[in-house]
């Protein structure tokens, strides 16, 4: 249990990875290259700079630069950073899927990598066949899989369908079975890339639980996620990666704070653009684009008066149509603790079908928040609970200690808690209000 600094699990020394973009771009057809030469034969003859043809085609790109770190056994390390920052590249180097261009990484013990749930699952094969196939792909021995087979099936909750081809599974069953196999790996080092992006809330909870168990058993976990709350809850350490370099290595709360600073989220201006490469997770049919907090006159604000409804405009872009979408907005305390959640289906309202394009939805929340700072999470799910897009800590705002008209305030600003529900106070005897109370005779202590 806990980190063991004298026993390293992973040691990286000057690790660097270069990709030659010319090879990865395009369809990789030899004929296409020949065509390029045939179409522009003159360009070469005219003495056009060679950069236009040869150099550009293989422009090097350093996905990871000079990364050095040591991770001890039993540490749970979160990797945070924007899309394309180099997190997956780092995982691929640690897990020996790709070779580094420079430096080296040494791993101590058996490692298992989960870059995707269900790699190698074949739709035509039965659940049972896929468990054995996927298990052996992930590096388990046949005997190991057989020994854990019942546990795996139990974990996935698909006992009745083990002999059904997985193409007939619902996407939820499929993902559960695939994750169940991975969850029963017993590596010394577990490397996980953003697996929480798929599946419903229940599945995500299970994933997190499994990772916590693994870390608790003294094994090492490296975990890439845009779910910053999960990083803070699960990890003992975090690395912030930006532009291929390790920008920060330290306690999760500090690293997450620096990351939020870096990506410019948690805006206090009352209006936040959410960039495409912002830390988000979900299946991606829709992307949140902007969030704005409105005051009573419709202007942008960063404050809300006491007892005034909160109003937000959520702007989002639909990339692929969604049949039944559910909007969600969450208000959290500054430390990330969720205070309340509202969804567009609250009160048995219908989910929303979405067509491609950029749209804005306005949500008004009737809640009185106690005076302090809050942050807002926003996102969207399908009606079955799978997350389409989710962005945390987009906006920061302050609930003030007085009402807009100036007729209400807290006498003690340091009042505890987060919300002030509507309450009434009175006398149980008369049913009157608290103001009538003085007129009542005092209740006498009953005689013995």
């Amino acid at each position, binding site marked *: 249990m806990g980190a063991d600094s004298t026993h*390293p699990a992973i040691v990286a020394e000057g690790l660097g990875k270069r990709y030659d973009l010319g090879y990865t771009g395009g369809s990789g057809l030899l004929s296409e290259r020949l065509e390029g030469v045939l179409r522009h034969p003159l360009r070469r003859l005219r003495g056009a700079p060679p950069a236009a043809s040869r150099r550009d085609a293989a422009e090097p790109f350093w996905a990871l630069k000079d990364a050095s770190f040591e991770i001890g056994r039993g540490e749970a390390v979160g990797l945070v950073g924007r899309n394309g920052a180099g997190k997956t590249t780092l995982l691929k180097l640690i897990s020996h899927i*790709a*070779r580094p261009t420079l430096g080296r990484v040494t791993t101590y013990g058996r490692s298992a990598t989960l870059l995707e749930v269900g790699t190698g699952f074949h739709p035509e094969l039965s659940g049972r066949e896929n468990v054995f196939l996927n298990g052996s792909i992930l590096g388990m021995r046949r005997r190991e899989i057989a020994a854990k087979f019942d546990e795996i099936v139990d974990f996935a909750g698909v006992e009745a369908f083990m002999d059904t081809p997985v193409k007939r599974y619902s996407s939820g069953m499929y993902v559960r079975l695939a994750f169940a196999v991975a969850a029963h790996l017993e590596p010394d080092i577990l490397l996980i890339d953003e697996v929480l992006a798929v599946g419903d809330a229940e599945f995500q909870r299970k994933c997190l639980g499994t990772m916590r168990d693994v870390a608790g058993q003294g094994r090492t976990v490296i975990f890439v996620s845009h779910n910053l709350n999960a990083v803070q809850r699960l990890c003992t350490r975090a690395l912030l990666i930006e532009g291929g370099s390790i920008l920060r290595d330290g306690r999760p709360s500090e690293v997450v704070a620096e990351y939020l600073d870096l990506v410019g989220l948690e805006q206090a201006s009352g209006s936040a653009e959410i960039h495409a490469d912002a830390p988000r997770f979900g299946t991606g049919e829709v992307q949140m684009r902007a969030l704005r907090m409105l005051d009573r006159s419709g202007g942008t604000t960063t404050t809300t008066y006491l007892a005034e409804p909160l109003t937000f405009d959520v702007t989002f872009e639909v990339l692929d149509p969604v049949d039944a979408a559910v909007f969600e907005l969450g208000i959290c305390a500054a430390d990330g603790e969720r205070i309340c959640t509202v969804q567009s289906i609250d009160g048995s309202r219908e989910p929303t079908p979405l067509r491609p394009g950029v749209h804005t939805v306005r949500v008004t929340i009737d809640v009185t928040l106690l005076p302090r700072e809050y942050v807002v999470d926003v996102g969207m799910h399908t009606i079955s609970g799978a997350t389409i897009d989710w962005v945390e800590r987009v906006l920061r705002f302050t609930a003030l200690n007085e009402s807009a008209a100036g007729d209400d305030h807290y006498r003690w600003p340091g009042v505890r808690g987060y919300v002030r529900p509507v309450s009434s106070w009175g006398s149980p005897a008369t049913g009157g209000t608290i103001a009538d109370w003085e007129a009542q005779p005092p209740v006498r202590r009953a005689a013995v």
Partner: protein
Amino acid sequence: MSQPIHSELIEVNEPAGRWAWLSLREIWQHRELVYYLARRDVAVRYKQTAVGVLWVVLQPLLLAGVFSVFLGLLTRSIPHEGVPYPAFVLTGMTMWLFLAQALSKISMSTVDNSALIAKIRFPRLVLPLTSVLQPAVDFIVAFLVLIAILVAYGVVPPIRIVLAPAILLLGAATVLGLGVWFAAIAVRYRDVKQIIPFLIQAMVFVTPIIYPLSVVPSHYRILYALNPFVAVLEGFRWVMLPHAPSPGLLLLVSVTMSAILIVTGLLYFARAESRFADII
């Protein structure tokens, strides 16, 4: 240096050297993966199609039928080694279909499994190795049917039929040698997908499938024998048909070509595989 509790395994990931060698030990450690991937291919092949096993048998029969009609009846000049022409051509076709199917499957094995290459760590050679197995299972089924049909034609295979597994092994090695070249090249250039069917079609005419080696003028035979499949086809007919000529010294050329292909193919593959995950 401290030792981990769970395992004493220490692995270093470093830049690839100029030359890479195959780690046979690593492939042996992944034998179960080979088994499950091959099992997947076999299961999928027999599950998806309505006629299943029948298809494996029908393919060589139909092709042999077509060639019998067009070549056996129209041009009666093709010698067929003392057996009815349909029996002759079915023998060649049974082996050829294995080679052709395995070649295209091996050549596309890296691209077809690109998700595995990009996301899982395992010795990449597992993929071409696995790809020989499902066609080999098909071959065994077709082989049994071939024996039955030969007997029906009154052709009793000679005792040297026990050498058939050796010929199958030679065929598998040859096709693997050629296939791993394509499998490695296909990672970078998808053109391989276009080239393979064309190559297979062309090979039908420069390999003794529908005619025996004896048809080829003797002064061209050395050149002809550079095709490594010549030895496989001639060898297979020799073990199957009682009056087929024994493979002469000429076939050493063909076998040497097989050996060169497999050695160079494996070396090239081993060298290229360190970059597969980057460019696939």
